[in-house]
């Protein structure tokens, strides 16, 4: 559905700032019906890439094909296959109601609002905006505005939907609702969704595959499941009553993968990252030597945030 080949973008120098290479020859493809997370730290080049996929930024070189159409040279036909939410809840007209927004943007994308009436009603209900269909968008909550912006992107019937930070600034409930909606839309409608986000919970919950970019280059491209497996580490969190003796601290800090924090005069927390199980026994031995009282030992869950940080850190070191 999407094919990107050797894409490059360098922003020209201006006002004394040197030229910036934002995207450095990236290539990837996305299949129909795939929900892809496009991740990276700030300034990694992900927004530039997404905007090039929307035809809003011209690449210096490289090719983008949307459903087989060359976006760089045949922008308008290719854009019929793409819709996007780039500015979150700012992508809609605040002085229009949800219904009016959907009707307007349908026409803007070459659709007949009259023919889409059933679809408009469907999306209003589906996104829990039915009761607010005739309320001006400016009077809706941020979560509702965000849902409306996504509904506006979907009403165009495009095969590809690009979402830049779709859950940014939302409360837990609204963020959860949007995640569920995205999963359902991919499952039911077979659309291809690319989302960028800094919220790794969103990635872990919704994306089948992720591409991680850093300094304009792809540093990882794999399924969420594989990346979690690849970076699976066992981390134990040990809570100790009171404080450790200087000799205990010295011994623990000399061990690789041990992090210590005195939470209060009454409690010390030790995080042990296990490369092999022997390390845990050695840590417990050190604690026993001064009869420290162990309150609890818990195993931390591996999560995608840790995976992301490991990959980005690795990418930066390698660069």
């Amino acid at each position, binding site marked *: 559905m999407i094919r990107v080949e050797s894409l490059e*973008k360098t*922003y*020209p120098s*201006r006002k004394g700032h040197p030229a910036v290479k*934002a995207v450095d020859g990236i290539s990837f493809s996305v299949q129909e019906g795939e929900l892809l997370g496009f991740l990276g730290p700030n300034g990694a080049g992900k927004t*530039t890439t997404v*905007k090039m996929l*929307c*035809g*809003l*930024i*011209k690449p210096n070189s490289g090719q983008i094909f949307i459903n087989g159409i060359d976006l760089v040279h045949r922008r*308008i036909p290719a*854009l*019929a296959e*793409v*819709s*996007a939410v*780039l*500015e*979150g809840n*700012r*992508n*809609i*007209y*605040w*002085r*229009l109601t949800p219904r*009016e927004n959907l*009707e*307007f*943007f349908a*026409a*803007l*994308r*070459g*659709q*007949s*609002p009259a023919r889409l009436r059933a679809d408009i009603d469907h999306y209003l209900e589906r996104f829990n905006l039915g009761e607010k269909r005739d309320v*001006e968008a400016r009077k809706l909550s941020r979560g509702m505005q965000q849902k409306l912006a996504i509904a*506006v992107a979907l009403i165009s019937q495009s095969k590809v939907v690009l979402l830049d930070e779709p859950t940014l600034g939302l409360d837990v409930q609204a963020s959860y609702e949007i995640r569920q909606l995205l999963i359902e839309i991919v499952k039911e409608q077979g659309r291809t969704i690319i989302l960028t986000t800094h919220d790794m919970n969103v990635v872990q919950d919704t994306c089948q595959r992720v591409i991680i970019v850093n300094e304009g280059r792809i540093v990882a491209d794999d399924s969420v499941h594989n990346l979690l497996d690849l970076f699976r580490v066992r981390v134990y969190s040990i809570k100790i009553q009171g404080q450790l003796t200087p000799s205990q601290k010295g011994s623990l800090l000399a061990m690789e993968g041990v992090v210590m924090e005195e939470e209060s005069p009454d409690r010390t927390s030790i995080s042990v990252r296990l490369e092999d199980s022997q390390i845990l026994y050695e840590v417990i031995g050190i604690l026993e030597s001064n009869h420290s009282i162990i309150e609890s030992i818990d195993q931390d869950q591996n999560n995608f945030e840790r995976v992301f940080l490991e990959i980005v850190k690795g990418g930066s070191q390698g660069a």
Partner: protein
Amino acid sequence: MLKKLLLLQAFLKKEFIVFRRYWVNSLGSMITLYVIFLLVIGGFQGVRAWAGVGGDTVEGLVVGYVLWLFMLATYQDVSHTLRSEAQEGTLEQLYMSTHGLGWVMGAKVVAGFFTNLVLVVVLLLAALATTGVTLNVDFLSLLPLVVGTLLGSVGIGFAIGGITLVLKRIDSYTQMVQFLLIALVAVPAGRVLWMRLLPCSYGSALITRVMVGGESLVQLGLWNVAAMFFVGLIHLLLGFGVYKICERKAMLAGMLGHY
């Protein structure tokens, strides 16, 4: 073509909804413009009395003011739209339209024309009632002349809108365009030939001949009207050309939707 009509219908509906929903604001704008007119006409009559000159130029002033208003509103429909949509975050959606931005802005201008027409007609009636002058309001003759004249405003709007996309936050400079438009309405393009090449000026002179002089479109002559349209089209194309250059620059620099 049907899709283009749907696009126009969408913009007409949006204009109407906002005009009606924010009618207090719309009314406020009309009152403000009317007060400005009173100040202009009051100042003009004061100066005329002080200088001891007479004549029937109040008619010319009414025509000039209303025409300037129409040109200003049309210019702002393009330049202000590009700026405000960038500020509000919707410009990128307009760019992603499958119609292309040229058609989108065209639909916006045509839809705005009807809203502006309501505003201009109301103010014209108010101005005529206030000054007690009579003008030849021959709609059939005026409509093509007004359309031809406004082509220049649209061209200026595209040029200024494009420059704003690249330079950003240049409001204090772009506000000067409204004074430029006054000059374009006021220049004696009827008498000085080269001034007919200026944006809107030739149309302004022809409209004055119809409204003040009582001539009809036929009396103006086909050649004059055609030449006015040609000049208007050239200005529209030049303005759009400047806009496309600026758009390309903004897209290369990745600052299309930024403001």
